[in-house]
């Protein structure tokens, strides 16, 4: 048992016993942050946070930086030529440099470069903090997904995901909703539920996966509704349960677990309504629904906003099952399609958060697990024999991510890749550094947000990571 346990039982000693009616006074204090009773109660940060919640838009598969936010005019000039000095090693063989089929232009007062792959997001350039110098360790999906999500790239290492760490650190602002939600339509990404698991952290911090392809609420969250009785009957049923609980407590001493359990029944009852409500985008006025667009991606981005607005701490929005952004072939066609799906919803999210004053303390992160080569992928026998042209391979040497809101600098461009966008060369930022910076924005010293397990204090950034203060507003 814990110290808080003693404090609570001591309170009782001072005469605040069980009320004859209603729940004990302790129940009302449960919200006050006793994490031994409620692992999702709001946690304390190390210092004042800039961001209170996170929306991580995961363009899984690896979006191409040189076709989106990392403008490389040299690619035009050297199109069809070998990389001077030789290319870098990636997963598969690549050939000559390939110019982007998308057109770049400058946007906003800041004049940030962005392509017409994301025309609407580009309009919001002055809100974006674009990091062109991201890098990871290897050019493969599994380890890179693990690195981005858990800080440990080996698929078989058991490490909690970033969302679990954040929820562990911050709890949730609304106990009637899950603290960490992973929206992914149509199934799961590569490496599956490992992307949002809590590993050795308690299960309370695991991400709740929601397949946003379903529109029926009862299919979105298991057991969210009772199918066999209407809610007013269920209320009567719960009243019966709680009355029996109260009468039984009357005969024994206050016990934190017993009370916590009674409290959680009430929370669950409310969650049925609130979760249903959070996922019901039909409640949005028409102009908002139109802003996001009546598409799968529009809907799930709107759900993301409704969730953070209601206090969910960490929402991850995946583009789709598998690795949709993995355009080994025909970058124009495939990236074009993906961009068309994602652009309006993402832009809408930023606009909408901003107009609600939420962008200030909501950190939005966009990116994949890595980027793509500026060179064209060559066909190889076997796996990608069909990829005859105009695709790009994975590239961990340099890629782009952007953040918005949550205490980051808007209209800001950070770091550089080389002339062709292959490798981060100026202010390179490793994924660990990104994690350290994200935790910093959330009010945590990444070296101190630890959890003791198996004799060690673990942390998201392992023994790495530096906060990049240049990115902070």
């Amino acid at each position, binding site marked *: *048992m*814990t*110290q808080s*346990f*003693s404090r609570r*039982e001591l309170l009782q000693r001072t005469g605040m016993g069980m009320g004859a009616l209603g729940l004990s006074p302790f129940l009302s204090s449960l919200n006050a942050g006793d*994490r*031994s009773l*409620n*692992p999702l109660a709001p*946690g304390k940060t190390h210092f004042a946070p800039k961001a209170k919640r996170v929306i991580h838009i995961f363009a899984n598969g690896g979006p191409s930086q040189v076709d989106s936010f990392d403008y490389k005019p040299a690619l035009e000039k050297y199109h069809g030529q070998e990389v001077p000095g030789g290319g870098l090693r990636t997963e598969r063989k690549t050939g000559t440099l390939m110019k982007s089929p998308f057109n770049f232009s400058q946007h906003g007062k800041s004049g940030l470069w962005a392509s017409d792959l994301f025309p609407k997001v580009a309009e919001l350039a002055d809100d974006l903090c674009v990091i062109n110098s991201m890098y990871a360790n290897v050019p493969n999906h599994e380890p890179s997904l693990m690195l981005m999500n858990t800080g440990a790239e080996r*698929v*078989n*290492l058991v490490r909690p995901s970033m969302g679990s760490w954040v929820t*562990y650190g911050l709890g949730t602002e609304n106990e009637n909703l899950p603290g960490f939600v992973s929206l992914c339509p149509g199934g799961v990404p590569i490496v*599956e*539920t490992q992307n949002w698991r809590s590993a050795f952290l*308690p*299960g*309370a911090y*695991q991400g*709740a996966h929601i397949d946003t392809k*379903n529109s*029926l609420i*009862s*299919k979105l969250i298991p*057991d969210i509704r*009772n199918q*066999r*009785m209407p809610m*007013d*009957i269920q209320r*009567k*049923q*719960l009243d*019966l*349960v709680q009355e*029996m*609980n109260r009468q039984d*407590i009357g005969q*024994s*001493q206050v*016990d934190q*677990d017993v009370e916590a*359990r009674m409290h959680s*029944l009430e929370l*669950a*009852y409310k969650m*049925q309504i609130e979760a249903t409500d959070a996922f019901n985008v*039909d409640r949005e006025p028409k102009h908002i629904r139109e802003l996001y667009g009546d598409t799968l991606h529009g809907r799930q981005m709107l759900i993301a906003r409704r969730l953070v607005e209601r206090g969910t701490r960490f929402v991850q929005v995946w583009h789709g099952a598998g690795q949709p952004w993995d355009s080994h072939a025909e970058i124009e066609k495939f990236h074009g399609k993906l961009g068309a799906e994602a652009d309006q919803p993402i832009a809408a999210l930023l606009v909408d958060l901003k107009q609600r004053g939420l962008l200030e303390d909501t950190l939005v992160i966009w990116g994949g697990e890595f980027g793509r080569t500026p060179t064209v992928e060559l066909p190889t026998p076997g796996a990608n024999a069909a990829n005859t042209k105009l695709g790009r391979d994975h590239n961990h040497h340099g890629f782009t991510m952007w953040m918005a809101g949550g205490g980051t600098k808007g209209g800001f461009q950070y770091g550089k890749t080389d002339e062709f966008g292959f490798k981060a060369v100026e202010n390179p930022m490793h994924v660990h550094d990104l994690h350290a910076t994200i935790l910093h924005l959330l009010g945590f010293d990444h*070296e*101190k*947000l630890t*959890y003791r397990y*198996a*004799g060690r*204090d673990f*942390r998201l950034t*392992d*023994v790495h990571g530096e906060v990049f203060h240049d990115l902070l507003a």
Partner: protein
Amino acid sequence: MTVPKASLLPLLLVSISATSAVYCADTNPGFEPAQIEFFEKEIRPVLADNCFKCHSGTKAKVGLELNHRGGWLSGSDYRKVVDLENPAQSVLIKAISHAAEKNIVAMPEKGDKLPDETIARITEWIAMGLPWPENEISEHKDPSEHWSFQPVKKQELPEGAGNPIDYFLNEAREKAGVVAAEKADRETLYRRAHFDLLGLPPKYEELRKFVDDPRPDSDAWSALVDELMASPHYGERWARQWMDVARYSDTIGYEGAGRERRFIYSYAYRNWLIKSFNDDLPYDKFVLYQLAAEQLVDWDSPEKAHLAALGFLSLSKNGKNEIIIDDRIDTTFRGMMALTVSCARCHDHKFDPISTSEYYGVYGVFMNSFKEERPVIGEPKSGPEYDKYLKERAEKQKVIDDFLAPKLAKIEKEKPELMGRREQLIKMLSREDRRELAKKQGVFDKFIADAQMDPDKAIILTDAENIRKQRIFVRGAPGRQGDEAPRRFLTFGKDVEPVAFTKGSGRLELAQQIASPDNPLTARNIVNRVWMWHFGEGIVRTIDDFGIQGELPDNPELLDFLATWFIENGWSIKKLHRLILTSHTWQQQSSNPVQDKNMLVDPENRLLWKYNKRRLDLEQLRDGILEVTGTLSDEMFGRAVKILEPPYSNRRSVYAFIDRQNLNPVFRNFDFSNPQETTAQRPTTTIPMQALFTMNSDFIQNQAANLAKKVAPQEDPIQHYHRAIFATEPTENDRLLADSFFTSVESEMKDYSKRQTNTAWSYGYGTHNDESGKVSFTPYPLWTGKQWQIEKETPIKDNPLSYLYARAGATHPGHTSKESSIYQWQAPSDLKVSIAGAVQRSAVGKGNGVRVKVVTHKGRLLFDQVMDPAKKTFPVTVDPFDVAKNDLIYFIIDPHENNSSFDSVNWSPQVVDASGVNPKWGLAESFSGPATPATPHSAYVHALLNTNRFLFIE
């Protein structure tokens, strides 16, 4: 920044590579004050300016810490950096002198070369023996003196001490001034023991028998404990506890597409555990078998069943060799010795006296052990079905063989030395061939796993024929080989000759070292774990870490007494249970009249002055529900079953299929162990997700309905439910509450129970009378699992209802207007709604179309149009209108002029709440089969299953 379990631990916020000088082996040579002054004036400032930034603290480059003397002495992860005998030859001096030698990196890396005179001073300082102020030299004691590395001390008990557990704890309580609680009553103890030993709730009659046992308490109790431990269900409970330690899983973890993830024979290990607990296999043997059974048992005798014990090692996670081996080392040492040996994989353990060399000494054991699915330990099936299976299996095997044979033959020709060595040969295949083989193997493995026809086999480890030597992997990287690490056992930092492993891989010798009565950790570890499983917390609260970072035992004498006693009593777990369950400490009430006073001294109840009330864990909850509703299966052993997906298995949770990679989130919502790694202790959290499951899941409501149905007409139902669920009689109050509940819900539930489905929609047929506006509606009688219809066989000959059906968003009317297809929607409350959607008729241009109507049960015609047969899509929308609670809206497909040819239509109308409060009611999305409405009685039973009276063990 902690949750319960973490907050118990010392809040030393060190990262995993926190490299403060925790201990260093040298003694302080005692420097002259002048030497110290030289250091402070001439050396320290130089170091501070040029070295400390990279070479100190948690991120010291190459593991070299120059901010304390110990760091200078121990050097980098790769080598020593100072040579006290020959200072000028020190690697560090060469580095700062920018010596042009191989493997010398010029330092400082950033910034200018140090002036020559500074380098000379540093050289001089090294020659002095690195003088450093004494108070900065690590002053930690010798870690080999840590309590857990000392031999277990036999504790003497005075005459008449009574139960030794009580003796030790009473002594401690007296010293602290806390008073134990009274003994709990027989009812409470019976239920507690039942859940504790069997994981199941008691049965009313059996509990009464015990309560009414005329013998004195101690005799009756003693007999009961023996009786419970003799139950075969005992093993099902306690095997599961050990499965947490063994990170048991029925899948290997992550695998790429096309590969089979299931272990086909994982259950053999689980079954062995159940049997071993039931047989009270002595714990030393239990350990030996799990680590080296294949070298201990006769493969040709019934003893061979013990081969399955090796699942402890073989059911490890997936990955590269070093991941698998590390997992085996971690599970073995953390699980069996409460030691975090894996911390020494990349560098010497930062706190405990475990060197990398020792880690790789053990690594060599596992590196020379290979996994095999070999020995058949079960009886093969027989009969035509099995023969058919064998034939099919052989065919599938042949596909692989035919693919491989020519390719392997070719390699054999090129490399005759590999002749006949299949594993080696396969490694020589081209990348594409290996990929193809993996695909084919995946198909084969899936077939075997699905068929479940093979006889039980053990997944074992066997020693390599040619034992390879192991070297240290510097910083854990297999590519960087360091010194040789001979296979040997740990020395706990003591100045003794290590026990070398000389036979084969040394795995048996390792097992013998662990299972030895002289091992200071093994017996302490298991008695501490058994203690935790009984009381919720261990005597040492850091269950899997008895090292220097772990907590000290709350009562070291008690721990040592139990460890000694356990060994003296033949390593018998059952005897240990008995000792614990017959103590007053275990038998106390869960409340204590002097609680307030006790709390001041011992708020965490470390002195066990009351029993810790405990919530049922996932297995106790699920098994308990099945048991009290009379549906729990008695069947033992066998293959894994999925327990959280329909059709819900009625087998015990110990048989649950555990998927290491994608565990159903419900498991971890209920604090189930993480099957990725060995689990020391499950957390205890209370979150709404748990309540959602107990309030709403089909599983629990099915069970509630089962019990409600089982009451015979002449029985008192309330009494029946309470006896079944709580093993008690209902109190007067319980009856009052029950009555008022029934009264309050009866009429509403009656209405509700008439519904065809669980949703607002019903499906049927009938007609709308154009004159009266009335609708006659007959719900379909039959659900096929996919659609609603009239009879099993359709079309029905000479019947106008012949073609009627309703499927998710599709339907067909009967022959005439009288047999129109009708969807019915019922309003759940007063609302303003609109209607959206469209009818689609695929047979464009054929037939005469359909007439589509939307009507309320009050006869209000909302929509009535004939769909032109030339059209494919036909919007059916209605502007917002008011409905009252329970109003019905009918969506009608009339075959139009009694011609139903080509009248298959797709139609999924949507009822839209104009206020937006409710999500849309779309027919297709919510399409479902028959309702399973709760009844007042099933709802009452369901309520009882949600009470704390059921969910907690007092």
